[in-house]
């Protein structure tokens, strides 16, 4: 009878997860005992807890070497650490954005923090997941709390719709993806990505069932990152969900989907780029174009940002579509995806923070309600202008560097298809400018719609969220070298 050996656990490598789990439990328990009038304490503990989980990440990053566990199913390397940092930072900023929104809206505060942190924990786990089952578990851990958060404005029909749509389509996507995973497992006999990669390069790689498996997995994640034609849930969900949750979904949840995709593709399926690269080509081209064209017609700021985030996802997909045999080009593509995710997170969170701030006064989500914002809230206007034009990719704001790296990846691959995709991306960035600039136009050039020029009150937590975002957006645009170790991040490509 085989003796059970406890697997080796590298507690240092797992420290961020352990700390965060502790904080999640603490928040849940604390919420039970804290008096109704002092719920803000719970949120504060949650915020401090997230920052505490960042400490071991910094330590691990300074320490350097990769730490694989469970036979390669769970790896803590530079890629994982950077993404964990991104998710924790996103979680922290969303907490800041939500603090006043949730308490003033008279929604459950403690549970909000608890669910948000649970979802962040799922994302943190996802960053290290190099195994089909781990990926699945992480995905469920990050999605299920998010389904509930989307319905947090429980007295609002739209919010109910948002949660239900998100839930149903999310479950459908998970089902499709699981089916794909089972096919891949059936063909290769393993769930660990590194070993799958080995099998795919060998005999089992040629089997038809692998192609089907990869197809289903990619489609499943295409739902998650709201790529066209699997994006239909996104605008409705984004509009109905509470705005901080929308920010969280459009940044954290989307980035988690991409992180999973990057790991699957670069670690697991890399050898079969002939299968997935054309798929991503179509997804990228369609996502950019449809997202942008539909965004042109939006009159609600949140729906506009929703379609904008669909279009941005298309840009992040571009590097995946151009990967070929060339390892150098693959590294360049992976770097582009990662950096795009980071910059996208900062500028999108910033834009949503402004939406929350302005809605505190106007009580409206229409783009028209931004008319004449410059006259009574010049600071917010300048910040929103930064975020909008950064999303549009105008130098010297951060977004240009992200777009630039995407173009670079496409031309590094150098194939005619890659160049065509780069041109499509170029044309799309011009189309996108139109709706981003239309927001700026409202703020700077239009009159105030109701002549109400009372200044907008920005609570300190929200101001902090704005400050974090804008510093990042400007700093990365002027001095991208701040990411000095970007070269190392492409460590997924062997």
């Amino acid at each position, binding site marked *: 009878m085989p003796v059970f050996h406890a697997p080796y656990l590298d507690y240092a490598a797992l420290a961020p997860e352990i700390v965060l789990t502790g904080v999640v439990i603490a928040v849940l328990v604390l919420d039970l005992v804290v008096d109704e009038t002092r719920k803000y304490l719970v949120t504060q503990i949650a915020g401090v807890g997230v920052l505490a989980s960042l400490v071991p990440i910094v330590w691990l990053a300074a320490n350097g070497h990769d730490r694989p566990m469970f036979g390669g199913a769970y790896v803590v390397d530079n890629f994982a650490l950077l993404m964990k940092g991104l998710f924790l930072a996103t979680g922290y900023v969303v907490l800041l954005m939500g603090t006043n929104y949730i308490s003033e809206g008279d929604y459950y505060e403690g549970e909000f923090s608890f669910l948000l942190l649970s979802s962040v924990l799922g994302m943190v786990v996802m960053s290290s997941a190099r195994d089909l089952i781990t990926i699945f578990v992480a995905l469920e851990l990050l999605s299920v709390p998010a389904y509930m958060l989307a319905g947090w404005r429980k007295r609002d029909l739209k919010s109910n719709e948002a949660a239900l749509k998100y839930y149903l389509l999310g479950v459908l996507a998970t089902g499709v993806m699981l089916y794909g995973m089972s096919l891949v497992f059936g063909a290769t006999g393993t769930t660990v990505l590194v070993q799958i990669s080995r099998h795919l390069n060998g005999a089992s790689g040629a089997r038809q069932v692998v192609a089907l498996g990869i197809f289903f997995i990619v489609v499943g994640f295409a739902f998650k990152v709201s790529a066209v034609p699997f994006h239909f849930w996104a605008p409705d969900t984004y509009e109905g969900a509470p705005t901080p949750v929308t920010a969280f979904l459009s940044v954290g949840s989307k980035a988690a989907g991409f992180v999973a995709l990057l790991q699957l593709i670069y670690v697991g399926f890399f050898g079969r780029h002939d299968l997935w690269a054309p798929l991503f080509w179509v997804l990228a081209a369609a996502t950019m174009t449809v997202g942008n064209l539909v965004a042109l017609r939006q009159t609600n700021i949140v729906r506009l940002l929703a379609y904008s985030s669909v279009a941005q996802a298309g840009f992040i997909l571009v590097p995946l579509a151009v990967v070929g045999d060339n390892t150098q080009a693959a590294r360049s593509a992976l*770097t582009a995806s990662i950096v795009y995710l980071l910059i996208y997170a900062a500028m999108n969170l910033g834009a949503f923070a402004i939406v929350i701030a302005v809605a505190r006064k106007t009580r409206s989500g229409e783009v028209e309600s931004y008319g004449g914002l410059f006259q009574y809230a*010049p600071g917010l206007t300048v910040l929103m202008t930064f975020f909008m*034009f950064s999303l549009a990719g*105008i*130098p*010297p704001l951060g977004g*240009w*560097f992200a777009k*630039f*790296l995407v*173009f*670079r990846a496409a*031309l*590094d691959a*150098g194939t005619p298809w890659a*160049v065509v995709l*780069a*041109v499509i991306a*170029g*044309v799309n*960035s*011009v189309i996108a*400018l*139109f709706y981003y*600039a*239309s927001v*700026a*136009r409202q703020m*700077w*050039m239009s009159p105030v719609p109701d002549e109400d020029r009372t200044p907008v009150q920005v609570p300190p937590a929200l101001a902090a969220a704005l400050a974090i975002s804008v510093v990042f957006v400007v700093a990365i645009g002027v*001095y*991208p*070298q701040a*990411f*000095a170790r*970007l*070269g190392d991040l492409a460590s997924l490509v062997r």
Partner: protein
Amino acid sequence: MKDFLASPLTWTVLAPLLGMLVLGVSSRAAEVWLKVVALVTSLVTLGFGVEVLARFDYADSRTLQFVVDKRWIDVINSRYHVGVDGISLPLLLLSMVITAMCVVYSWDHFPEPRNPKAFLMLLLVLEIGMNGTFIAQDLILFFVFFELVLLPMYFMIGVWGGENRQYASIKFFLFTLFGSALMILGFLALYFKAGNTFDIPALVANVSRSGLAHNTQLWIFGGLFMGFAIKVPMFPFHTWLPDAHTEAPTVGSVILAAVLLKLGTYGFVRVALPILPGAARSWAPWIGLLAVIGIIYGALGSLAQRDLKRLVAFSSVAHMGFVMLGISTLTSFGINAAIFGMVAHGLITGMLFFLAGSIHERYHTRELSRLGGLLVQAPRMGWILGFCAMASLGLPGLAGFWGEFPAILSAYQPAAGLSEVLFRTYMVVAAIGTVFAAGYLLWMFQRTAFGVPREEFVDAHIHDVHPPEWWAWTPLLLGILVLGVAPGLLFHVTNGAVQTITAALTGS
């Protein structure tokens, strides 16, 4: 860090940035303080320009001077590499002078909705972008500065512009961005095809040493062409220009005409021609064709205008046509003329837009049919307008002549390999264009300045030139006169650097 800050070139970018930050933290109400800060900033920046001018080694104008070459973005191999040679120097100086004069002119001319703080901040951001483009020797640095001017100009037109400002501003933005998107793809293609560098001198050397397939060159040149030609703007990409110029506030029009258009032509001379000489030869006949179409089209367009500012805007299309014709001959004669044309057009058309703005401010209209008798009501301004109109139509002895005449002449003998018959035809067409130019400019002058004032303005009190206007205009008027009398001053500076470009063009 030390030589980064020791170079006056760095300060031509850093000084406006610091000034802008000071403006940013100043109170909106302290208007005088804001103006003083902006003025001091632009003058200090100009001071660094004068330092460059004084310490520049004119005997060696072909090599880059005041070079700073520092790490910037290692990940993409892009460096902070700046320097000036004989081609950049005059344009750099032009940009600084124009900005300073715009600050002076704005002193009591803030267009509605005023807000001097935001207006002056945008002006200084524009200066950062313009100066930076002229000193950048790295394609990515060049790109960032080239794009940096878009946002402030968009807001300047959109917030302070005329009736139709929202349409004009977004049109300007979209057109230019479309060009830049293709341009950046061209830059990237160069990077991967010519030795993994964005450094302009290194790219020139790499391509001339190891060559680049002609087809690849043609495609890359096409990308760069779109970026630069839209900025110039060349026919048929010029349609953003009349709208943007007409709607922009006076200072915006001046900057747009005097400096921003030059970013496009400068791009051709600095980036497209030297790096891709082979493609330049294949493209040259087409560029020449579009240039002469632009000359005739711009002239005819000007003749058809009823609005003073729109007329000047269309005349810009024609004048930039001459500049592009000079460039398309690929001869040192033509390119020298083109650079002269850029500077002359900057001074003259800048002045014409200043005048159009001042006339509009006094009469509250720019309709030529309602104007008249400026010489009666404001004789000094009338004569200045006459002077500038003469300079613009290319009267010998004033700056405009030296940009236009040699450009036409250079088409008589284009570079080896280009069709002489074709370019001589261009020459004839361009020469006819100068006749039209005389026509619309004289007609414009006649309608605004001669005759007696219209009845509606007879009793209006029309101020003659104000002190701030004198301060802002005198340097430009002197420039037009001095360069007209002694063109050698400028040709002497540009020639050396132009020779190296044409050597590369004929070399391979």
